[in-house]
């Protein structure tokens, strides 16, 4: 447990020293969302109809963009290798890294999402659904993204590849996440959706760390 917090503290400290790492995904999230009214239509009725999907797609892409860097700098300066050979369990390290990535990406996205929701004229009763769905859904995105990041960290050009690997796996989260917001905006109960998002999260919490650890071992030893 002490190792977990030490690793988490180190990662968060590194992020705070490079503040751009926090700001970049958020700025990307805003920009992607802005593209839709510009590209399709600024009509409020239309925007409030597509808001749930657009916000979720933008959040998903922002997570994807930042997940590539989750192991990269540690791999490049060799500290990842040291962590792998250390006696501390790799699963704990992996969990700490995923948690720190989520705190920087998904958690912040959930906090600023009402801003975008306002720009998209999402009905106000949908706001809690939006924030809750992002809080429950984005950890899954970080976990699955970390599998892709672990598999591609040893490769020179991981960026495009990681989206090919991970995007198909993001589909269920997108469907249930956007569904939550849509139901919430219409004033329908959202507990069922949140339960499904939570179930996917628990499932991934259970299995993904093993896949991430195995992927890292392959990447570092190659």
């Amino acid at each position: 447990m002490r190792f977990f917090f030490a690793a988490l503290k180190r990662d968060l400290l590194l992020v705070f020293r490079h503040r751009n790492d926090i700001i970049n995904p958020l700025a990307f999230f805003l920009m992607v969302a802005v593209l839709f009214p510009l590209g399709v239509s600024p009509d409020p009725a239309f925007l409030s109809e597509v808001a749930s999907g657009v916000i979720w797609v933008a959040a998903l892409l922002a997570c994807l963009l930042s997940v590539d860097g989750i192991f990269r700098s540690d791999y490049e300066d060799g500290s990842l290798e040291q962590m792998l050979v250390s006696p501390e369990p790799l699963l704990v390290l992996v969990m700490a890294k995923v948690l720190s990535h989520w705190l920087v990406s998904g958690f912040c996205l959930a906090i600023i999402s009402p801003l975008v929701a306002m720009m998209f004229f999402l009905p106000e009763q949908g706001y809690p659904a939006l924030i809750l769905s992002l809080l429950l859904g984005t950890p899954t995105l970080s976990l699955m993204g970390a599998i892709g990041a672990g598999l591609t960290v040893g490769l020179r050009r991981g960026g495009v590849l990681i989206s090919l690997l991970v995007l198909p796996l993001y589909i269920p989260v997108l469907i249930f996440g956007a569904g939550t917001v849509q139901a919430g905006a219409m004033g329908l109960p959202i507990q069922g959706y949140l339960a499904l998002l939570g179930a996917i999260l628990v499932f991934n919490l259970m299995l993904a760390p093993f896949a991430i650890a195995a992927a890292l071992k392959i990447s570092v030893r190659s």
Partner: protein
Amino acid sequence: MKIKMPRWFYQLASPKWFYDFTGTLLPWFSVAAVLLLVVGSVWGLVFAPSDYQQGNSFRIIYIHVPSSILAQSCYMLMAVAGAIGLIWKIKIAHVVAGACAPIGASIAVMSLATGAIWGKPTWGAWWVWDARLTAMLVLLFLYIGVIALNSAFENKASADKATAILSLVGLVNIPIIKYSVEWWNTLHQPATFTVTAKPAMPPEMWMPLLVMVLGFYCFFAVILMSRARIEVLQRERRSDWVKKVIENY
């Protein structure tokens, strides 16, 4: 814990034994594939009765359904072979898994293409956001991811292991994706196209379909074995038995 597997399982792990064994199987499967495919297509395309609603356009079912089934079982085989390769460190399993990926991707494309061609006369559109179509498209994306990852590594051994992990992750997620897509479809698409429950087909219709499915499986086995054999030869090119094989060819 050590799991003891039957002897043939370990024998199959030897590249030479695998090469010889598939060499004896290959002609049988080729003959069976040709026979079944010819019988199935002639029976299905010529002799089977035409559908009372869709006329003759339903006959594409004899290609569409077998390819859809095969695309899914091919992914399963790929993931299971990858798991065997990871657990027992058997290189042949990785060879088989690697051979599955491009075949599976092309079969998935065939399933989607025949589906689109079939959709045009029956639904009036090439593409419908139907749950099954979308799930097949996602399966194709998973195949593309596996192929892309496999070709990105320079080191063969790590490429094998990485793709095995990715295909296992995909295998675990396929049911979730399938279920969620079905859920989404019922949400977003209220009965614009009612793909009504299939009327129970008469035996004259499903018998040729069964023959075609078996034929597709044999055909798949032939291609898979051929690809795997070539890959084995290439990987073992420095060993004596491969040199002998090539000299005697």
